[in-house]
């Protein structure tokens, strides 16, 4: 178990990076606290796997250091770092039984058979693989294979951290949540540092204490699922998290008001945005409400389309020429003749050049 400190770390796949655009992973300085579960969330190709492979030692970073409990491991090879890693596609040793698969890392490290039997037995029980121990690993289903990959990591006692690289990609949907629950309860039992790479926000939000959102090689926000939802610090976090994502409207700020074309929107505080920066107002579809009557400061809107997805309805509307999504809870009536809309003022976020701005009250 370990606290992992990434110190001014960056990585480029180019041998001689000429500028910031050559870096797959832009400079990051971050401490992954011991025993916490993190999710690394981002679209494909944003640098999450690069970051993971740097931590596990499969990649040597172009700059910076990786510290485990304060000890510099940047130049240590993978097998010396005590890292467990589960890959996107299950890796099992085809010719071996499940037992031999789990025993493999211990045998490679020269442990005696009695210790191995003990450890493998414990891990198999923890992962509910006891019944399969004698079977050939090759014949098993994808979810059991992923458990074996995980087990091969856990079987070593001194694992510093467990890294997951989109481990549920090839698992059937009905088994996904089951495996996710097992992972979560496993984390509660062994309280190891876990880093879980995914592009699926549901997976990230249900698994992790802290979600790290990456975009284009940058870490754009680190926070609890709730913080990501309520105060996205970057527009990417806003529209990547949530379904549908945050509405972003180009506005001009005038003190405590935002101007969207002819319309004026009251803001929760006073903002000062220097001239020439792209200014946007962000509001989640959950915090927009529709009505038939003007409720004082309501904005005129025209409804394009109502989509019923069961628990709630998603309304596609148009506000001053801009598309806008509204989520209407199941128990609230909505129809085409709703011609007014209100924003929950306290939930409005203002972004300048994609980054969240603080209001002065």
């Amino acid at each position, binding site marked *: 178990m370990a606290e992992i400190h990434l110190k001014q770390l960056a990585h480029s796949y180019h041998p001689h990076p000429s500028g910031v655009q050559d870096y797959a992973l832009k400079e990051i300085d971050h401490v992954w606290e011991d025993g916490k579960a993190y999710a690394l969330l981002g679209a494909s190709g944003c640098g999450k796997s690069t970051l993971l*492979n740097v931590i*596990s030692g*499969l990649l040597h970073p172009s700059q910076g250091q990786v510290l485990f409990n304060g000890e510099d491991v940047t130049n240590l*090879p*993978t*097998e010396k770092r005590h*890292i*467990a*890693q589960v*890959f*996107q*596609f299950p*890796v099992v*040793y*085809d*010719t*071996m039984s499940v037992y031999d698969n789990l025993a*493999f*890392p211990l045998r*490679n*490290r020269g442990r005696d058979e009695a210790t191995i039997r003990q450890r493998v037995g414990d891990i198999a029980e923890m992962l509910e693989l006891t019944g399969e121990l004698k079977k*050939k690993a*090759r*014949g098993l289903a994808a979810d059991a294979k992923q458990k074996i*990959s995980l087990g*091969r*990591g856990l079987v070593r006692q001194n694992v510093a951290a467990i890294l997951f690289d989109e481990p549920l990609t090839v698992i059937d949907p009905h088994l996904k949540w089951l495996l996710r629950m097992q992972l979560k309860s496993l984390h509660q039992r062994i309280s190891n540092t876990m880093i879980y790479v995914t592009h699926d926000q549901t997976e990230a939000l249900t698994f992790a204490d802290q979600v790290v959102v990456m975009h284009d090689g940058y870490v754009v926000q680190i926070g609890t699922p709730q913080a990501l939802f309520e105060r996205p610090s970057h527009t990417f976090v806003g529209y990547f998290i949530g379904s549908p994502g945050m509405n972003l409207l180009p506005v001009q700020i005038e003190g405590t008001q935002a101007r969207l074309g002819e319309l004026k929107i009251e803001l929760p505080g006073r903002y000062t945005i220097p001239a020439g920066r792209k200014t946007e107002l962000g509001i989640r579809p959950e915090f927009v409400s529709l009505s038939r009557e003007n409720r004082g400061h309501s904005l005129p809107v025209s409804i394009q389309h109502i989509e019923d997805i069961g628990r709630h309805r998603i309304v596609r509307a148009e506000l001053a020429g801009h598309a806008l999504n509204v989520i209407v809870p199941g128990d609230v009536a909505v129809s085409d003749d709703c011609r007014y809309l209100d924003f929950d003022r306290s939930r409005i976020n203002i972004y300048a050049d994609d980054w969240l701005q603080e209001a002065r009250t």
Partner: protein
Amino acid sequence: MNRTWNNKAWWMVLPVVLLVAFSAVIPLMTVVNYSVQDTFGNNQFFWAGLSWFEEIMNSQRFHDALLRQFLFSGLILAIEIPLGIFIAMNMPKKGWGVAVCLVLMSLPLLIPWNVVGTIWQIFGRVDIGLLGKFMALIGVDYNYTQNVIDAWITVVVMDVWHWTSLVALLCYAGLQSIPEAYYQAARIDGASRWAIFRFIQLPKMRGVLLIAVLLRFMDSFMIYTEPFVVTGGGPGNATTFLSIDLVKMAVGQFDLGPAAAFSLVYFLIILLLSWVFYTVMTHLDKQGG
């Protein structure tokens, strides 16, 4: 249940039946025909029963050729398969080296058998050959036309030169298909180089190795042209393999009856051994999983 039987579809098979008949079955039947008859000329044949088969099965000449053949094929497999795997594992995995390697490796495979034979026949000659001259220069008494061991070494090395590429290329294809994650997982598990070979690379190459072993066995068991060109089966009968012996018997001595019986026995041996190889290796495969 009442089924309607319609056998008209069999007519569709007819072209294939005819083709196979003319290309394989009818020529084979003429051989079968010769193997049970005898003639004193004038195209007059009479029934000889299984006497040719008895003669072949009891002939020392056949036994010796068969033994030499097994020795040759055994040596070929024992050298070419491990060497091919070794080469494949050391070939570059990406970059410009891949293309260079692939082309260089394919070159021997593109050379016709008799040309390979001629190349080595001249290469090994003591009077003008590069190899022969060189051996004499460093004081090794090498002469494939007179020394049995030298003749064997020449023939085996020639085959290794000609065909190891095939094994290497097949194994290379097998190795290339292993996802990178396997090697990464193995590094995390602390696997040694040998363990990676034993538990990842070898199992993943099993399919192509089965093909490589089968191809190399069948080809080496039927080898004719190269040793015929290099040594002509000599010195003495030292490199007279089954097919060389067969041709001597059929075309040289014109003993059609014994030669036909010889052919059939030869054919059945190859068929049997290929079947055994295939069964054993697919069985291992199932056991492995």
